[in-house]
């Protein structure tokens, strides 16, 4: 394709966008909404994953020790756990310490525990809190510890993570369905805009056909028009999300410091790529849909 021809196509595309102003605006608007939602979901998703990774890394196995275990047996147990290859950090929590923690947690309601303090009456068990080297090994570690003599019961926090994953995947599916619907309507609006553009230039197209312009010469400006609608539609959500995400991360960092957020530098690059490619894709799909139907050249 000659450069001059290329410039001609782009010029024609922009003229057409301008000529069908309102329709173009509507198409761009729906692309903006679609991609804005998509981008937000992407960021939310990244952060939920980040959060669950963070929680997973903090998971520990709690092994409750049987009442009958003696002090020396307790030491043997401790050594055995430390020797497990998966174990990273082992902490012994005595009955007394467990009681103190519970009392601290209850705060003002601490009086409820009165009379249970002394050894015989203390209903709590002593335990080992074990962190694993790798989060994925937690269940393995738990199983091994359960088999040790003197361990009564083992608990670990996998349920929390499982639940978080369920929530994430529900959000993902709902979001995906929603975005697909929006994406399709964006495509149809673009298709409709292109249809109008084809219609308003039917005289030109007729002449082009009569003088022997090739099919692609006639099609290109419309393909470019669709592409431009998609691309322009992706710019606004890109800039909006780029700026607001940085702002949100900063705000969270200052106000909810314990909530981990994905640093902007890690996600924004991917966001830019995904959104602009999707915008262009929507535009080209929409226009090719219309060209197939209304431009039998």
């Amino acid at each position, binding site marked *: 394709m000659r450069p*001059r021809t290329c410039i001609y196509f782009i010029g024609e595309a922009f003229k057409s966008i301008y000529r069908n102003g309102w329709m173009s605006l509507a198409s761009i608007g729906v692309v903006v909404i679609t991609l804005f939602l998509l981008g937000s979901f992407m960021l939310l998703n990244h952060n939920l994953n980040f959060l669950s990774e963070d929680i997973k890394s903090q998971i520990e196995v709690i092994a409750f020790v049987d009442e009958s275990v003696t002090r020396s047996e307790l030491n043997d147990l401790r050594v055995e756990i430390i020797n497990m290859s998966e174990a990273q950090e082992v902490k012994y929590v005595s009955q007394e310490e467990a009681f103190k923690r519970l009392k601290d947690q209850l705060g003002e309601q601490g009086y409820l525990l009165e009379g249970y303090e002394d050894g015989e009456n203390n209903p709590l068990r002593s335990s080992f809190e074990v962190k694993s080297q790798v989060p994925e090994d937690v269940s393995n570690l738990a199983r091994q510890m359960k088999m040790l003599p003197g361990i009564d019961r083992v608990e670990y926090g996998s349920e929390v993570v499982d639940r978080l994953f369920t929530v994430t995947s529900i959000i993902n599916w709902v979001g995906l369905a929603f975005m697909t619907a929006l994406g399709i309507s964006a495509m149809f609006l673009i298709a409709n805009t292109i249809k109008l553009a084809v219609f308003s230039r039917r005289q030109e197209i007729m*002449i082009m*056909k*009569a003088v022997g*312009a*090739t099919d692609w*010469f006639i099609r290109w400006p419309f393909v470019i028009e669709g592409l431009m609608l998609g691309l322009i539609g992706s710019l606004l959500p890109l800039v909006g999300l780029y700026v607001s995400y940085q702002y949100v991360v900063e705000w969270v960092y200052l106000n909810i410091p314990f909530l981990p957020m994905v640093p902007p530098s890690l996600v924004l690059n991917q966001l830019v790529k995904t959104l602009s490619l999707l915008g262009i894709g929507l535009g080209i799909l929409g226009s090719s849909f219309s060209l197939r139907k209304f431009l039998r050249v």
Partner: protein
Amino acid sequence: MQVTAIIQFENAFKIYPNGAEALKNINFRIEKGEFVFLVGSSGAGKTTIIKIISRELVPSKGKVKVLGKDIASMKRRDVPHFRRNMGLVFQDYRLLNDRSIYENIAFALRVIETPEREIKRKVMEALDLVGLKNKAKVKPVELSGGEQQRVSLARAIVNKPSLIIADEPTGNLDPDTSTDIVNLLRVINLRGATVIMATHDKEIVDRLRKRVIEIEGGIMTRDELKGVYRHET
């Protein structure tokens, strides 16, 4: 003797999808350099013939060859280049009103990717031939019907095609202006192009005494050298 036929219809039929038989068993040859009138009442099949020649339609049966190419077996992607060898003129001029006369003709060259340096020369040459060189910057709406048709003629010949197909080019014009247009077509013909003109215009056909092919109800009823519009019965 086989002379190079520009157009050749051999037992050609055209049946539309709704079953209407637009052309029944059409046979004729048009040689290089001829000037042919295609006559007949409205709906007789003149336009169908013209659309087959320009490969807007394909014959349903029989063989049609134009400029050495078989119309029915021509591939879609070969159609544009095939059309660059012919100039089409329509009753309604088909000019773009949002641009000047010059731009209208240049448009026809630009969309077949003619180098820009050739465009100006070719456009001015064509405008000169139709006598509108001094109106290059004017828009079509500021011209009379006859002048607009001359612009469309200029557009048809700008690429120097060997075949000119005019479908009722004088249909919207008064007799004097019609004569101007037909005279221009004759000039183009004398310069070497084969011309086919579908028309209702009895006066012109009778005066020029060129070859006449008459179609009635999809059937070719007459093919006469130096013919008239209609013989009195």
